[in-house]
């Protein structure tokens, strides 16, 4: 059987590129200068049956429209919000993503950020590296994590994985989302995010970004969380009113934060850089080689079963 022609739209990890190259006839749009894209697509329009894209870096609809024989778009990401699903459906183009495989990583980092923020671990590291332990003695006391009330916005896959972890630290878990989850009676459901914040020491954002959840952590929510409270965001920057967050942290109205995501990445508000009560990380929720490999394997596996006319493993469309 002749191997399927697969077009790579965006730069991806070396591992994925290598695995695609081993199994398929790989065409790299990424290697073509932008002014040559149209010619390149025209030349291969008759043969390309599959496209691999990382929707995190933006999906341009134009190449997909030009490929008349396109059968499948395999996203190297969980999110596909930048892809026009209706158009794909209309053209009979299948779409796959990589759900599930990054749940553990994001949950691990959320708990790591909560501990790091309360116990000020990056600050400790900085303190020791600068020779201040020797010069000034011990740093001030920091706050215990075990037993703290943890509130989770969004009890989906990631929220549940966070809940399972923090339970082992003796932390009571509450959550907010649009509907109560009947399966989890040990977690307390609260009807508003303000109520959740008022009953939490650590508030974790783990929901999807949509019109209902944009700006869900408002000034009012931060006031309810209070000077002893810590916000952890492993969702999206736009879940939080970022100027209010910066003001609340700077003025001590909010106790601390562990932030993996920001409104205008990779730019981070300058005012956060000087604060000791925050831990900043560069959107690395799924940034482990194990998880990126699992995502890559899923992309390849979806293309392989598609080529064999078997059911897709993780279809979106």
């Amino acid at each position, binding site marked *: 059987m002749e191997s399927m022609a697969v077009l790579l739209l965006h730069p991806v990890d070396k591992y994925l590129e290598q695995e695609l190259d081993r199994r398929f006839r790989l065409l790299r749009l990424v290697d073509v200068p932008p002014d040559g894209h149209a010619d390149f697509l025209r030349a291969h329009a008759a043969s390309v049956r599959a496209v691999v894209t990382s929707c995190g870096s933006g999906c341009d609809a134009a190449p997909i429209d030009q490929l008349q024989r396109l059968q499948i778009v395999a996203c190297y990401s969980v999110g596909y919000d930048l892809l026009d699903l209706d158009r794909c459906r209309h053209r009979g183009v299948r779409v796959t993503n990589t759900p599930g495989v990054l749940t553990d990583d994001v949950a691990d980092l959320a708990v790591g950020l909560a501990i790091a923020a309360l116990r000020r671990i990056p600050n400790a590291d900085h303190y020791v590296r600068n020779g201040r*332990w020797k010069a000034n003695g*011990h740093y001030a*006391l*920091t706050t215990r994590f075990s037993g703290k009330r943890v509130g989770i916005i969004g009890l989906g896959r990631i929220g549940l994985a966070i809940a399972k972890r923090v339970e082992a630290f003796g932390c009571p878990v509450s959550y907010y989302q649009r509907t109560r989850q009947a399966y989890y009676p040990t977690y307390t459901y609260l009807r508003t995010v303000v109520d959740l914040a008022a009953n939490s020491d650590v508030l974790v954002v783990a929901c999807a970004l949509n019109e209902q959840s944009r700006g869900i952590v408002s000034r009012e929510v931060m006031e309810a969380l209070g000077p002893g409270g810590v916000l952890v965001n492993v969702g999206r920057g736009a879940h939080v009113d970022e100027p209010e967050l910066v003001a609340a942290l700077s003025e001590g109205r909010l106790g601390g934060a562990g932030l993996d995501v920001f409104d205008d*990445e*990779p730019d981070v508000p300058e005012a956060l850089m000087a604060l000791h009560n925050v831990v900043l990380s560069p959107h690395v929720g799924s940034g482990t080689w*194990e998880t990126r490999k699992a995502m890559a394997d899923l992309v390849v596996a979806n293309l392989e079963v598609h080529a064999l006319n078997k059911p897709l493993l993780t279809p979106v469309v």
Partner: protein
Amino acid sequence: MAQGGQPILDATESGGPNPKPVVLLADPLIDEFEPELSARYRLVPVADADAATAASARALLTVDLPAVTSDVIDALPALELVVASSAGVDHVDLAACRRRGVRVTNAGDAYSADAADYAVGLAVAALRRVAAADAFVRRGGWSARGEYPLATKVSGKRVGIVGLGRIGAQVARRLAAFGCPVAYHSRAPKPGCPYRFFATARALAADSDVLVLSCALTAETRRLVNREVMEALGAGGVLVNVGRGALVDEPELVRCLREGVIGGAGLDVYDGEPDVPPELFAMDNVVLSDHRAVLTPESMQGVLDIVAGNLQAFFAGRPLLSPVTL
């Protein structure tokens, strides 16, 4: 531990009908301990004790980790009890205590939760490079240089715990919830324990991705983690130490990190602290910390309760709350 105020000596009551019992201080008291203990006891720094006090004092308190040597113990002929405010009592000459029939108490369970939390925090920070990533963002590296290098997953990593005592057991429970299989090494297998036992630290290290040190420092455990153990842990392995610096051959640890014999480390304790090997300062695969694992207000209150409880029990002739087996 933060340096506290000087003890208040209450000379007026010492000659009264119910004089406060004397408790000698091996090192300065901290502010958190002062009100409760000075209300019940006449607190006398051991260096300031006059001959009569030294001859009659029955209890000695250590706040941080001052060396309580056989000389100190032998200079106190009436001594019956050393109350330590720490989980590990390696600063006390236990052989001298045994010989003299002096009992020793430690912090019991007061620090277990914080020490276990911190061990997990260091493990996640070392594998996911939390502290290095924070420094990267603060230096402006994200906007200037783009995506941060991939880190290592935590969930599912094989965790080996050296010393499955109060702290080790809590580390095990926490990391099991991350989907990590847990194994341990200690002097003997724990009956009924669900985790796999290894008879040597080397065998445990060979079967672990993360090796956590949470055991007491004794003659047997000193330099337990030597080059051989680190080679068994391997290039992908991470060492987490919330025990004592001397559990590790520190110069060898520095070499192994530099040569890539092990992958990384999360260290809260050092052999000559507060001196830290300066070679570590330039490494981004280590997380360094200033022996703060248990320094929270919650732990301070917990240890005060157990210190005060042990002293009260001792002077009332009741069983001690957290005696150390000598």
